[in-house]
């Protein structure tokens, strides 16, 4: 087990290094320098600026400096807004994304597991076909489609909830719901499939035969084993919800990291794009690692070589 984790960790570090290197060299492929404005900067100032950002150094030295910065957690300044660093932006906006993501994850797991269990218990009945049809429907709707539709129905037409912006808990419902629907559907399908498998086991039949109620069998005996695939999906789910938040935050005008990321893409604010990409990559790679480890911990059938 220890060796398995070490191997995974090594893989994670390599993947991270690949991301950082690729981002660095991609950034240098972008035509034009960062100080090429419509009004040219005076030669002397440009030289000073280039010195400040080490742009006058040879490429390999810039790369090493960049690596050094990243190892120390410094993601660099924003070229569009020189008074702010990428670290500032992340510190300010990531908690907002995390809060939104937390509620979405909570909603997706709770509703998904309940729906999947109910479907499995009533396999083949109307409620099963009904919820599985909706599951496949919501899997087929990307969050950037769901979000405006919710905005339109609950905000514009019914006036139940605010159309956009951030502030009270009311502002959180629609965006969290838009983020959660797809993952809810995936979890419901996962739970249903593994629940059906567990329910056909002898120990469940034995519990039933002893006269325990369906609900008790489900909660006490079946759920624990049926949830293994769901738990391992939890980390990819968090990753999916955070990438989903790019557009949802933009649509609902929420000051989270996703919106900054998309805005920096619109503005071609390259250093912010790079910095946030590296940050997200580290976050998602960490989620992958945690998923692998929980999977190995929970399912003894996995060999860790």
């Amino acid at each position, binding site marked *: 087990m220890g060796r398995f984790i070490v191997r995974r960790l090594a*893989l*994670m570090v*390599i*993947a991270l290094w*690949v*991301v950082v290197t*690729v*981002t660095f060299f*991609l*950034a240098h*492929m*972008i035509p034009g320098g960062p100080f090429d404005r419509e009004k040219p900067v005076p030669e002397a100032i440009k030289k000073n600026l280039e010195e400040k950002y080490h742009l006058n150094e040879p490429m390999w030295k810039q790369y090493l400096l960049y690596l050094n910065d990243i190892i120390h957690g410094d993601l660099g300044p924003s070229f569009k807004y020189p008074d702010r660093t990428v670290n500032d932006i992340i510190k300010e906006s990531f908690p907002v994304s995390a809060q939104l993501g937390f509620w979405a994850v909570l909603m997706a797991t709770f509703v998904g597991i309940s729906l999947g269990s109910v479907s499995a218990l009533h396999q083949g009945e109307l409620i099963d076909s009904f919820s599985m*049809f909706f599951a*496949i*429907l919501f*899997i*087929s*709707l*990307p969050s*950037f*489609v769901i979000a*405006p*539709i919710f*905005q*339109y129905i609950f905000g*514009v037409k019914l006036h139940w909830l605010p159309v956009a912006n951030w502030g009270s808990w009311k502002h959180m419902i629609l965006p969290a719901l838009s983020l959660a629907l797809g993952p809810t559907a995936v979890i419901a399908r996962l739970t249903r499939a593994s629940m*059906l498998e567990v329910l*056909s086991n002898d120990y469940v039949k034995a519990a039933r035969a002893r006269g325990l109620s369906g609900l008790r069998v489900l909660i006490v005996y079946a759920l624990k084993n049926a949830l293994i695939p769901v738990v391992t999906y939890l980390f990819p789910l968090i*990753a999916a919800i955070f*990438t989903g938040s*790019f*557009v949802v935050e*933009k*649509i609902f005008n929420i000051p989270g990291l996703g919106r900054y990321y*998309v805005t920096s*893409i*619109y503005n*071609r604010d*390259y250093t912010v*794009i*790079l910095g946030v*990409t590296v940050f*997200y*990559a580290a976050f*998602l*790679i960490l989620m*992958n690692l945690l998923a692998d480890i929980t999977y190995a911990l929970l399912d003894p059938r996995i060999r860790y070589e």
Partner: protein
Amino acid sequence: MSMDIKIEELKDKSLWEPIPEEEKMGAEELTAPQVTFWGDVWRRFRKNRLAVLGLVLLVIILLFALVGPLVSPYPYDKQDYDAILQAPNLAHPFGTDYVGRDLFTRVMYGARISLAVGFLAAMVQLVIGVLYGGISGFMGGKVDEIMMRIVDIMYAIPILLIVILLMVVLGPGLVNIFLALGFFYWLGMARIVRSQILTLKEEEFVLAARVLGASTKRLLLRHLIPNAMGPVIVTVTLNIPNAIFTEAFLSYIGLGVSAPMASLGSLASDGVEYIRTAPWLMLFPALAIALIALAFNFVGDGLRDSLDPRLRR
């Protein structure tokens, strides 16, 4: 039955005469008609109503995307300032946008791009993914180890982020989307094919083929890969919506196809600004994306159910 039949008895010519037609016992009626593996799959697939619905949907969408723009009376970029922001009507079934372009035609064009992206994703998986996984699983040993480490590392990298970055650097455009997606879309498939090949290559029919002197190429292309095709097809179908979503997402955040070309993602993104005044601008492209994804998911689910011999009903 006694086994000691004399050779002389077997030489009796009358034993080898064909049976006269009228004496045949109706042997054909005793055996069920021969069904091939794929015939069996098709039989199960046909019984799945949602899967058939998905297939029909796909054909309809394909027709609209391929033929629709050719017969539409409006070119996709024709601006008509006498017909700005019209609600859906007889002349413009999906309405018109803020410069009077016919939304129906533009959605059909967008569907074309979505389907092209889906097709590309399928091709990348079928060619690169299947060959890479096949070779890795078949060779085993050091080669397998190295090839799979490469996949592991690339797999750990969040694809969407790198694709976004590539699009920022390469600039918007359909060809660049193809490049960025093609670079990554074979990874999952390579893993699936490899594990399939690993189990298949221990099977006896492979040993038999080997004994008969089949070459490596023949073993891979004639025996191993065709037998791994079931999971491959299911994975391809279920992955196509992902590729289509990615393109729509990229176009949505302004990294996809460039104007006046339209993709379903950029159409939906343009429509969001008019959601209060002209909700159809957002609704129809969104519905089109959902419908395409739904069709592929129905077909993929149906294929998985009909290909899986352990299916319990």
